[in-house]
């Protein structure tokens, strides 16, 4: 029997992207640079997070025309972002034929209580998280890939590290628990019980776990991979640097050879200026993106 767009097809695509770099691009020309550098996928969006942060206003789904141009330019998967809870934007992205939808805190949330029912779609979804409870809620709703949020557009890795460490240590804690303690931890985390049991048995999420938000230099990618990320999203870090083509290639190489410091040293040499970045204390609480999502 032939079945289209099964759960295994959705998670399977996420598995195919492991060990790679997914790059934010705002036009076809940038998408071509990303593909040439060896990106495993591109995220099509009108403004990179650093510009969304600088310009303010409501950030929405991108213009379908721009997404279509990018899809026509590259052969690698194309992802696009929908606002949290905005299932009509997600329907439009599915109709366009994008390969992955990111229900993203980088855009202005459309719903302050509910996320999208992602099981209802043929297209797979990726969602952000700051801890294991949030990750398992999103998987329960149908996300086929998780990314720790970090703080998008900051060029600062500290939040990405915090979120990845939190998820990994939450998982180690659950793995070491007794079976009879799992229901209470599910209640406390606000996570589906069956997914808590999965983590207890396997010591990992049932879908791939990538890292996002703040990766700016090759050593940042290596750090996140060593902390347990299975792939890396790079947003503003590439096209806000002085030499995007070289930096993009260096990010790809560093994500593959993340455990070889001698090679990271070579890969990192002479790349020009990275994006400038922000101290977390310079970002007012109400302008932080990571707390969006419930």
């Amino acid at each position, binding site marked *: *029997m*032939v*079945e*289209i*767009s*099964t759960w*295994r*097809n*959705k998670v*399977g*695509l996420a*598995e*195919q*992207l*492991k*060990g*790679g770099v997914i790059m934010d691009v705002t036009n076809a020309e940038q998408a071509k640079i990303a*593909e040439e550098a*060896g*990106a*495993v*996928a591109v995220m099509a969006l009108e403004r990179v997070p650093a510009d969304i942060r600088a310009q303010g206003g409501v950030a929405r789904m991108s213009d379908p025309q721009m997404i279509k141009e990018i899809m026509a330019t590259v*052969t*690698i*998967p194309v992802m696009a972002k929908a606002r949290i809870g905005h299932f009509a934007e997600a329907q439009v992205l*599915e109709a366009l*034929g*994008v*390969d*992955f939808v990111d229900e993203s805190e980088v855009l202005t949330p459309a719903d302050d209580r509910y996320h999208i029912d992602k099981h209802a779609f*043929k*297209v*797979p979804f990726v969602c952000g998280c700051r801890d294991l409870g949030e990750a398992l809620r999103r998987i329960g709703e149908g996300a086929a890939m998780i990314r720790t949020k970090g703080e998008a557009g900051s060029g600062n890795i500290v939040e990405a590290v915090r979120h990845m460490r939190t998820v990994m240590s939450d998982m180690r804690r659950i793995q070491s628990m007794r079976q009879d303690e799992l229901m209470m931890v599910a209640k406390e985390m606000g996570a589906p019980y069956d997914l808590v049991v999965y983590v207890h048995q396997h010591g990992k999420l049932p879908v791939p776990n990538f890292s996002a938000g703040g990766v700016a230099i090759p050593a940042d990618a290596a750090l996140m991979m060593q902390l347990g990320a299975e792939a890396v999203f790079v947003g503003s870090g590439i096209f806000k640097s002085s030499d995007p083509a070289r930096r993009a290639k260096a990010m*790809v*190489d560093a*994500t*593959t*050879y993340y455990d070889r410091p001698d090679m990271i040293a070579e890969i990192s040499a002479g790349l020009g200026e990275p994006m400038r970045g922000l101290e977390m204390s310079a970002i007012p609480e109400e302008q932080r993106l990571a707390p969006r999502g419930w």
Partner: protein
Amino acid sequence: MSVLIGVLALQGDVREHIAAVERAGGQAVPVKTREELARVDGLIIPGGESTTVGKLLDRFGLMDPVRALPQEGKPIFGTCTGMILLAKEIEQSEQPRLGLLDVTVRRNAFGRQVDSFEEDLPIAGIEGAPVRAVFIRAPYITHVAPEVEVLAETHGHPVLVREGALLAAAFHPELTDDPRIHRLFLDMVEHAKAQRDA
């Protein structure tokens, strides 16, 4: 006989292939340097992005050492991306490749991700129930040379083929619990090693 399988670990679903080899009764390790490649008896090129893996093979000097494996009596099994990289011809593409398998492939041949699917495939030489085949943004083969053996087809196109020491699948046997296709590859590697040792 004990053989060691390498899984090319530049990018893609490496862990799933290592687990699949173990389910089939073999032993596998990730490979991303020439030194690691030299230790294995056969190589799996996993699913991933073919443009990414091709560029990394090129940049890190692995293209020629991998190309030389079949002549050294070390078989290669490519799944999805691996099939694309093994192919001599890739429609509408100049991307870097190994170019060992005498076929022409079409990338993303079944459509985009929303068209990805799974189905039961009868496979020549595999006994019992058909194999559940998971196709993800998959390629298919549009032309095969006479010496290439077609083991399975769907939609009228070959999706599992063998040529000498090369095995290539358009789908992902590593994503199901069925070990039979990995067993088929292990048999090829064991046979090749016996011939090398003789």
